[in-house]
């Protein structure tokens, strides 16, 4: 009797969650159909977004999302992997616990707080630091990337730490027995053994950076079409998929079916990018660990 009730309730809850998940996917596909019909593939390859003339090209936003995520990863990865090596290879249980406390807390800081710090501090630092390159203002793709680097640091660090600690201690002992120093053991045994997990950590960090909205919105400058796609554009204002979705254009599009579907389409593109990164990471890291990925 109780068995069937508990079972029924569990399956009911799971079913409900699945219904919501499916509804999310379906609504993004269905509601973006008009813009796919209107633009075709040019929706993702077009580089002009101008809703008044019904031109919807998402390439600048994809470019912006990719640039900020790559900058974030390039800055966060060395720091995170270094800290993870320190934690996994050099600290013993008790000390490691203490080291993990601030990392866990860092992971908990809301993105709007990062955004606030970005607006009030980072924006000006970047502006002054790169003055000789004449950045347009402090709101640049680079600013967003640096801010994101701090935000994904705990995610990458925790996952890298898990990956390194997943290397069997017998492997380490064997390395020592072969006459490796501790550092050599880390470089020649632990890191290669943990490589798949580290790759997964980086992919998930990239995914998280790509999905982050609020902090990026506040510092990215929100300029729809890039003047160019060179390195120079990193020091100019840009737009990401998420900053566009979070902008007031979402409200403005609300009543216009085509414009609205163009906005929802941005979400579909974002979903496709983030899910493929996550699935790719899942191939590298099939068991646990993915769970620790924090949502952007």
């Amino acid at each position: 009797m109780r068995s069937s009730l508990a079972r029924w309730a569990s399956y009911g809850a799971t079913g409900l969650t699945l219904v919501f998940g499916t509804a999310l996917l379906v609504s993004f596909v269905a509601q973006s159909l008009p813009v796919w019909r209107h633009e075709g593939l040019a929706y993702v390859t077009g580089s002009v977004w101008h809703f008044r003339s019904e031109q919807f090209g998402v390439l600048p936003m994809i470019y912006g999302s990719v640039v900020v995520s790559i900058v974030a990863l390039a800055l966060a990865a060395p720091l995170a992997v270094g800290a993870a090596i320190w934690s996994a290879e050099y600290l013993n249980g008790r000390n490691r616990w203490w080291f993990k406390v601030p990392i866990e807390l860092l992971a908990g800081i809301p993105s709007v707080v990062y955004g606030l710090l970005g607006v009030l501090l980072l924006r000006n630092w970047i502006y002054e630091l790169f003055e000789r390159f004449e950045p347009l203002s402090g709101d640049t793709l680079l600013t967003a990337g640096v801010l994101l680097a701090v935000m994904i640091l705990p995610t990458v660090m925790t996952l890298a730490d898990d990956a390194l600690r997943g290397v069997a201690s017998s492997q380490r002992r064997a390395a020592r027995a072969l006459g490796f120093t501790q550092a050599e053991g880390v470089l020649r045994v632990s890191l290669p053994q943990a490589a798949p997990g580290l790759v997964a950590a980086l992919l998930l960090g990239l995914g998280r950076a790509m999905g982050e909205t609020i902090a990026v919105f506040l510092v990215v400058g929100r300029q729809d079409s890039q003047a160019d796609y060179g390195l120079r554009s990193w020091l100019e204002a840009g737009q990401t998929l998420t900053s566009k979705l979070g902008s007031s254009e979402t409200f403005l599009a609300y009543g216009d079916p085509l414009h609205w579907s163009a906005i929802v389409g941005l979400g579909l593109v974002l979903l496709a990018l983030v899910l493929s990164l996550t699935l790719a990471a899942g191939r590298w890291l099939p068991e646990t660990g993915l769970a620790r990925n924090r949502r952007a």
Partner: protein
Amino acid sequence: MRKWIDRGLPIACAICAVACCALLLGIVATILARGLPVLSGEFLSAADGELLGSGGIRYQLFGTVLLVATALAVGAPLALGWALVQAVWVRSQRGRRLLRRTLYAVNAVPSILFGIFGLIVFVKYLDWGKSWLAGGILLGLMIVPTIAVALVERIEALPAKYVRAAAGLGLSKGRIVTSVILPQCWSGGASGALIGLARAAGETAPILFTAAVFSGVTVPHGVVESPVLALPYHIFVLAQDSFDPEAGAHLWGSAFVLLALVLALSLLALPLRLRAAEEAQHG
């Protein structure tokens, strides 16, 4: 050469580790230094004033608590059900893997997409306008993976002999769930829930279009057309206006309160969470 590497590597790694901690310290110190002077009993208990960004944050705080409580009420049962299905009821490895993968996929969905989804479902389709319930449901769905994964980890780490012993006593599987598995694993669920709540409390993107307004709202009377104020949204709006000193003080005070709330929830979860991680690691 070997000697240098052997010395250099730990130093370099330690520098990375110290830098990570320094970042946290720097962020907390910055918010603390600017937010603490603003903080007072009145700031917490007064409603916002006539001028934009003046007065207190009473209803912003209330709105955030309401959203978070709703998220818990929605997310916890769903996550509990999911975790039991994945870790107890489904026996085939393939089924479990499929469920786990699905959970990770849901976990990866960026929060802004929950916001847009909410706009489509609650605002457009159900015609609720902005509503606290819509925000709570979205935040609740968002934290299902966090809670469920924590629970599943705990259930899977449960020594098999407990379950065998209970089965030996002739208990049904439902009985084993309620009297063995849940009592043993509640801490996993609780820590997951706390982390999830910390996340829900700090989220802006899901409530941007669906639940929060900037001013003029107190306690909602119903569901339809019943938005709330919320701390993250308040900070988000004021952060775009980093100029007015009056609003600035209000802004840092709000940021401090939000950060304190979120860090307190994370800290509460920490002992449970890290202990579980250590146990899982050492089996």
